[in-house]
């Protein structure tokens, strides 16, 4: 009697686990299928050529999404360019360049930064960064590529630092003894042993940071000015794909405009998948070694 009850509970348990796993897998698949389904009309050559153009003027029949694609790429790469060196500096500070007490506090602070809502970063950006840029350069409204790039750099900084930190934690014990025996200073150890051996970690941090920057919506939406154009300078405004999706849904409902949303969505989805595949490839050989 007890045994059958136990067995039933056991199989129920297994069923719950299996079905949850199935639902999770199905959800990811559903997201992909929905995006594909709604992008199907894109396969028409005429529509495709209209969407893949540099001209976004929805009231004059221009529905090109290339400015947004370029905007997303420029923005994420520039944010990465700003955040990466600083992250390396922070990580080196935490691993020997700074005194150990402040170093631990710094890492805790960086971890804490992950909990700040992006909309709060955006909000503070609007009222601090934008007026600052407007005053400093005296051109335009201050809502520009540079403002969004700085905002995004702040956002992705913790991601990069924590990734590098975990890589340094792997390398450090391996070289510590040798470095100490050779009488190396912390700077020498970091520059000549730890960093050259963390290539994989650097690559993973770059890829991860890029993915985060590409996928964020609020900071480009609130700080970049959102003009659908390829910016000529850091002080001109641009529009990212994510911001485009948020903006167009909110305003109009013409069919080609909708299609442009799903085209952007599909591009974002595919690039996220690529980023993920890249990360997995970077991780795999290391696991084999260990």
């Amino acid at each position, binding site marked *: 009697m007890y045994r059958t009850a136990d067995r039933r509970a056991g199989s129920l348990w297994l069923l719950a686990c*299996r079905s*949850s796993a199935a639902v999770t*897998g199905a959800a990811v698949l559903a997201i992909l299928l929905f995006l594909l389904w709604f992008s199907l009309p894109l396969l028409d050559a005429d529509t495709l050529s209209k969407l893949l153009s540099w001209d976004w003027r929805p009231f004059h029949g221009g529905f090109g999404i290339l400015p947004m694609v370029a905007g997303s790429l420029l923005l994420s790469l520039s944010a990465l360019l700003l955040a990466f060196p600083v992250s390396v500096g922070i990580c080196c500070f935490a691993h020997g360049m700074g005194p150990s007490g402040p170093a631990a506090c710094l890492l805790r602070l960086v971890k804490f930064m992950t909990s700040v809502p*992006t909309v709060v970063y955006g*909000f503070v950006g609007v009222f601090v960064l934008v007026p600052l840029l407007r005053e400093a350069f005296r051109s335009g409204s201050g809502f520009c590529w540079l403002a969004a790039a700085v905002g995004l750099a702040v956002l992705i900084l913790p991601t990069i630092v924590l990734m590098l930190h975990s890589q340094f934690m792997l390398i450090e014990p391996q070289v510590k003894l040798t470095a100490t025996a050779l009488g190396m200073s912390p*700077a020498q150890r970091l520059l000549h042993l730890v960093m050259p051996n963390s290539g994989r970690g650097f690559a993973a941090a770059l890829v991860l940071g890029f993915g985060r920057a590409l996928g964020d919506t609020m900071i480009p939406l609130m700080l970049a000015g959102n003009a659908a154009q390829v910016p000529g300078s850091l002080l001109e405004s641009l529009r990212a794909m994510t911001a485009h999706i*948020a903006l167009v849904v909110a305003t109009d409902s013409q069919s080609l405009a909708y299609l442009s949303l799903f085209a952007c969505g599909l591009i974002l989805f595919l690039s*996220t998948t690529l980023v993920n595949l890249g990360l997995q490839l970077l991780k795999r050989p290391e696991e084999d070694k260990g």
Partner: protein
Amino acid sequence: MKTGYRLFSLFCWACALLPVVGVFGLVVFLLKQGWGGLGLELFFGDTPPLDAIFRFAPVWDGIWPACFGTLAVTGLAALTAIPLGLFCGIYLNEFPRGRLSGILDFCVNLLAGMPSIIMGLFGFALILFLRHTLVPDAGTGLLLSGFCMGLLVLPYMIKSTQSSLGGLPEDLRLMGTGLGFSKSQTIRHILLPSAGRGIMSGVVLSIGRAAEDTAVIMLTGAVANAGLPRGLFDNYEALPFFIYTVAAEYQSPEELQHGFGAALVLLTMTMGLFLAAHGLHHAMEKRWKRG
């Protein structure tokens, strides 16, 4: 060469100063601008607080509807993500089946890296799809937002369950076998209670994420000035969306003050949840590393 090292050291110190200045600057700025507006009036305007909370009296000039919307979305997201994530995490850690769980693992990673706006677009597409097929009058609303938000935080829940179970010492599993437990009994009576704190930290973390994300709710039903939602299919207000609209189109200093107040409230909330998650995670690690 020596100057090179000195320069490197200088560079590291400078970089280390940046986040400190940034974070303190952010907090001080928000406090300075928002502190004056904090108080019951910020939340409830002229409506008596108790009426607003228990009798659903309308609040015209406060952020209570936005707080309520955020709580509701977060609650619905938790209802979606916690059971699914818990069981899926157990499946991934305790019943590994070669290729299938490898694929599932990849799916979870993919979901974890998915931009939140894609989740919003998915919800939006879901509504379009329903309109064309089964339910012609389907619209965006609280339930849809909660569901999409649940999908967004699902990977956090799965990962934390998986890593909490994976971090338990092998003895516990042997203990189950030694007591003659079946696998599911071992999981239910020994492993889950032992991993409880770690799993709780995942729950808290997911809630924090669900409370702060804006992109998902933008496309699935959050609107400005909706008041309290009348049902699961009604549009609603939410704190992050309120902050966004204030930044984009505030018209009076009072409104701006409310924006700063809302930003402070949201920051305090996510900060508290983050600290709680951190504490739970730490407690879990400490408990099992000693033995």
